[in-house]
């Protein structure tokens, strides 16, 4: 999981999804996750996944990277499939697709939305301590990632992480984590001092959302509503023959058109 790359994508992307406001994208994500939860049909889940790949194409970021980041839960989905194996390959496919589709939804959200915007949207429903904790965790994350990177490099250069000396490696790595923790505390203390000077009294003020609903917002919300409506419709009128397969064919055509369109625009 490359947190720094995700943050870079979220802050430097130039697509309609990047321009859309965080609440619209959160609504889109919630609708797609709800579709994943209610859908048990393999082809329909595959159609949703392919639709999301189209969305990933529209972000104008590296689609391969996005799909790779979102593929991480597949490892654990395989474990879950093995543990709950009942002899049905279709059920195994459904579990795998549920994991991949939900993860891809969340990854599309975070590669197009800076974390602070997501937290700002969640502020009305979260207690103050959790909201502020989310902000400060996000801030500390990049400091610690850099420190951990330096630590690993330093350990390797000084022979602290060597092959076949596992016990010594664990001891050195643990001491390194302890060092990162203490350094992090020191930085936190300084940061706390700065916050105090700037009038921090236990609540971090967040910018208000602009409140304007743009065409980009409409496109994001409409995509979510479309996916959810199709899932709900097929779940409700499950008797429609091969409906999931038809949805998959439509999603595949949209994907091809999206690739062609973005490639043409790129040229």
């Amino acid at each position, binding site marked *: *999981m490359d*947190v720094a790359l995700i943050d870079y994508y979220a802050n430097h992307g130039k697509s309609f999804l990047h321009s859309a406001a965080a609440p619209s994208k959160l609504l889109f994500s919630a609708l797609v*996750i709800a579709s*994943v*939860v*209610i*859908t048990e049909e393999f082809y329909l889940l595959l159609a949703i996944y392919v639709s999301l790949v189209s969305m990933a194409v529209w972000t104008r970021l590296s689609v391969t990277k996005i799909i790779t*980041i*979102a593929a*991480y*839960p597949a*490892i*654990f*989905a395989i*474990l*879950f499939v093995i*543990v*709950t194996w*009942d002899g049905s390959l279709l059920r195994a496919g459904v*579990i795998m697709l*549920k*994991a991949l589709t*939900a*993860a*891809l939804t*969340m990854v599309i*959200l975070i590669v197009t939305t800076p*974390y602070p915007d*997501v937290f700002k949207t969640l502020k009305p429903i979260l*207690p103050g*301590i*959790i909201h502020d*904790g989310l902000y*400060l*965790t*996000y*801030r*500390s*994350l990049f400091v*610690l990632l850099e420190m*951990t990177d330096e630590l690993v490099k330093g350990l390797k250069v000084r022979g602290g992480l060597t092959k076949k000396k596992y016990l010594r490696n*664990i001891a050195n*790595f*643990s*001491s390194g*984590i*302890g060092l*990162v*923790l*203490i350094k*992090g*505390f020191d*930085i*936190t203390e300084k*940061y*706390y001092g700065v*916050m*105090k000077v700037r009038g*921090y009294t*236990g609540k971090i003020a967040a910018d208000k959302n602009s409140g304007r609903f743009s065409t980009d917002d409409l496109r994001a919300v409409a995509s979510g509503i479309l996916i959810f409506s199709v899932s709900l419709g097929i779940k409700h009128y499950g008797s429609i023959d091969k409906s999931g397969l038809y949805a998959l064919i439509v999603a595949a055509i949209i994907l091809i058109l999206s690739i062609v369109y973005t490639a043409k625009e790129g040229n």
Partner: protein
Amino acid sequence: MSHLHIPDGVLPGWLVLAGWLCTAVLLAFCIYRVKRLELTRKIPLIGIISALMIVCMTLPIIPFAYHVNLSVVAGIILGPALAFISIFIVDLIIAMFGHGGITVVGLNTVVIGSEAVLGYYLFLMFKILMGNYSVGWSSGIAAVISLILSTSILVLVLYAAHVNPDLVIDTEKEPHIESTTHETESNVKNGLSINVFVKTALALLAFGWMLEGVITGLVIKYVSGIRPDLIEPDTT
């Protein structure tokens, strides 16, 4: 690594809701308990510990795809209430990376939160039993026991995910109720799956428990050597 990497939409709705409800109640209780603390100083600490947990969770230990949680370290340094809040924050952020479903954040917080809370109290107990010079051993053993207990909670969650609660209630009311062939077959399969899971988990996770125990012990020993004031916060 005792948390649930289960995708959205796989666990039954009642279980997911129960997880969120349980987390909401526990969070409300924790927030109530930490009100008396000087939170302006504690919130940045939550940030740094949560960030450290996320960094460690994103470092898989090859070839086992295992990662350490440092939840017991969080419990020992932040105290149980703040650690529980910190774990909710961690679960919410990693779910946004697709690291476990967003709908299972509630259940994950209960599972990992129990690790931190149990770890804190077990650490205090072992420290009293073993003396002040054994913070490393006390925290290491506390971490191993907490992980075993939290994995038991995880197994219970998975077991509950397979059991239709209506069926359980009916069976309790009428022990000789006739089940359909499909139900019987399904229960037998599920029973086998849970057995397989428990055996697999014990074999694979035992290594993880030991590793997390060793790392926790060494981290706490290192921190207590340099900044002993960070160990044992205000009891919350």
